């Protein structure tokens, strides 16, 4: 039998259904894999006892002929989702030790579907970062290495622990969250499929908030089919989130295997961003060719304000973050530091609890929202956001999907961009525009750099058209035939 940790979700489902192995067996295989790969630092909290109990319960359900969509599948959860009775930290000192008395809507749907929870994965603190280096619990190591050296590389961020865990075969799949690229960028860095659905598809209830108008949960998997399977169990209307969508949820797997003959694929030249690795541009051209070979028509589209998406994002996201993170005051939960007055307790708690990047973004957000700057920065950014969303809408009047690179570079080394604030922010230059417009996007591993590192291509469709997204992603995946895997040496 193949190694149980190498299976896709679809294969594991088939194997469990046929009785080739039990949930307990596949769960034990993953628990061992996690133990062996602790040097990756992919998990903040491992929950092996919980996983084994979940697995045994699943095996019982299966014996009784009563299985859910994710029954018995060992899955990891980004530590931004609140999980009842299991420490949920957002990788922040502020929430170290916080044990939610409730379950996020997304994870409760997954629990209902029968998943086995392996643990909580590492992330950039409060999901603010693109390299997983801002975590209070230390950086995550990308399981991939360059051919040319042995330096530890970043897995991307903020869902870096999830991406590394999926790539290193520590779980069949993981959840991520994406505010400006936090699923798609690490997926590209780690050679996996990362998907952000339309804003409103997944309930945000019980997910630690970063920027509420942008935050979306999504699946991180090794195949497009697995992405569709996991997404199916994450989405759905939730009255507890006012922005949760009541749009009907289609069967995402139904479109897989369909051809893309006659589909129009938009190619926006504005994504030829200065400084982008030429290998990535070549891969993009290759991707266009693959889709054309499959019968799609490549059409140039113009998204002229693309370059303004990132600066608009770095006003809007910090502004929302500064407001959202005001709740960490040391009174009801989380860290409390000493102080001589109430104000000093607040100030000391927040100084001690937040790391450097979170502090910087709260200050930036406070600045752009403060009297005298609100119109010049915050309102201006919201107007630019509107123009960017409108540009996508016009483009989707003529095309069915848009193809772009997912990232401007391959994974970089730990510390390599620590002194380059804006250079770090540029990691999200390809993913942020779709986030601002609330559109679904997916990063599909499409090739290796000359130095042996995975590179992803991104597809974007109009809002609530995940079906076209998966349909084209499926073809892209087949064409790329990406079978490389990390050496798993650390």
């Amino acid at each position, binding site marked *: 039998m193949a190694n149980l940790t190498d299976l896709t979700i679809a294969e594991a489902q088939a194997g469990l259904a046929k009785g080739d192995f039990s949930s307990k067996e596949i769960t034990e295989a993953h628990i061992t894999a996690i133990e062996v790969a602790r040097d990756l630092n992919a998990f903040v909290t491992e929950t092996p006892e919980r996983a084994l109990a979940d697995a045994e319960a699943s095996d019982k359900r299966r014996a009784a002929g009563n299985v859910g969509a994710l029954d018995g599948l060992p899955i990891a959860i980004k530590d931004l989702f609140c999980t009842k009775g299991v420490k949920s930290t957002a990788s922040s000192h502020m929430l170290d*030790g*916080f*044990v*939610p*008395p*409730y379950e996020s809507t997304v994870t409760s749907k997954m629990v209902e579907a029968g998943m086995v929870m392996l643990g909580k994965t590492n992330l950039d603190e409060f999901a603010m970062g693109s390299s997983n280096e801002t975590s209070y619990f230390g950086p995550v190591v990308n399981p991939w290495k360059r051919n040319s050296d042995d330096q530890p590389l970043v897995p991307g961020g903020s869902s870096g622990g999830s991406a590394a865990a999926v790539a290193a075969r520590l779980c069949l799949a993981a959840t991520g969250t994406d505010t400006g690229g936090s699923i798609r960028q690490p997926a590209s860095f780690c050679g996996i499929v990362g998907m952000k659905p339309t*804003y*409103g598809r997944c309930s945000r209830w019980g997910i630690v908030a970063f920027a509420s*108008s942008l935050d979306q949960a999504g699946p991180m998997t090794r195949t497009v089919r697995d992405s569709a399977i996991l997404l199916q169990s994450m989405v759905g209307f939730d*009255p507890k989130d*006012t*922005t949760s*969508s009541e749009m009907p949820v289609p069967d995402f797997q139904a479109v897989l295997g369909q051809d893309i003959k006659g589909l129009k694929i938009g190619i926006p030249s504005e994504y030829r961003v200065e400084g982008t690795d030429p290998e990535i541009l070549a891969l993009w051209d290759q991707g266009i060719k693959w889709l054309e070979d499959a019968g799609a028509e490549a059409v140039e589209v113009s998204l002229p*304000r693309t*370059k*303004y998406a990132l*600066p*608009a994002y*770095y*006003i809007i996201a910090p502004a929302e973050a500064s407001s959202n993170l*005001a709740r960490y*005051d*040391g*009174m*009801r*939960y*989380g*860290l*409390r530091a000493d*102080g001589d*007055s*109430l*104000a000093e*307790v*607040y*100030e000391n708690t*927040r*100084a001690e609890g937040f790391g450097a990047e979170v*502090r*910087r973004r*709260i*200050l*930036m957000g*406070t*600045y752009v929202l403060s009297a005298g700057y609100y119109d010049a*920065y915050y*309102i*201006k*950014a*919201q*107007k*630019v*956001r*509107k*123009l960017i*969303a409108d540009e996508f809408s016009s483009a989707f009047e003529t095309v069915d999907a848009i193809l772009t690179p997912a990232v401007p570079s391959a994974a970089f080394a730990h510390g390599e961009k620590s002194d380059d*604030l*804006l250079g770090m922010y540029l990691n999200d230059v390809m993913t942020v525009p779709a986030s601002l417009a*609330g559109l679904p996007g997916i990063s599909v591993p499409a090739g290796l750099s000359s130095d042996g590192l995975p590179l992803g291509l991104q597809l974007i469709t109009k*809002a609530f058209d995940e079906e076209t997204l998966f349909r084209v992603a499926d073809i892209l995946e087949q064409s790329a035939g990406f079978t490389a895997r990390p050496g798993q040496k650390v």
Partner: protein
Amino acid sequence: MSVDKSTVARIAQLARIKVPEEDLDALADELSKIVGWVEQLDEVDTEGVAPMASTAEGTVLRQREDVVTDGDCRDDVLANAPETAKGYFVVPKVIE
């Protein structure tokens, strides 16, 4: 526009984060860099454009029935508090 040291001190106070004096210069420098960079938005003509707060803007906000949906969970609510007494949060003295 560059962000000076006193502005950093002021917004840190607004954000209720104690920033040590020795960090102010570096933060002023970093925030100036970011602010200088985002100011490229001034190149975009946004005359007459309505600011977009959410991509869910077109949808009508729902109203739910005005009924109790939760409750009887005091111990859960208090479980993560830094300090509690007799079923209440304990906070630092507010009134002298």
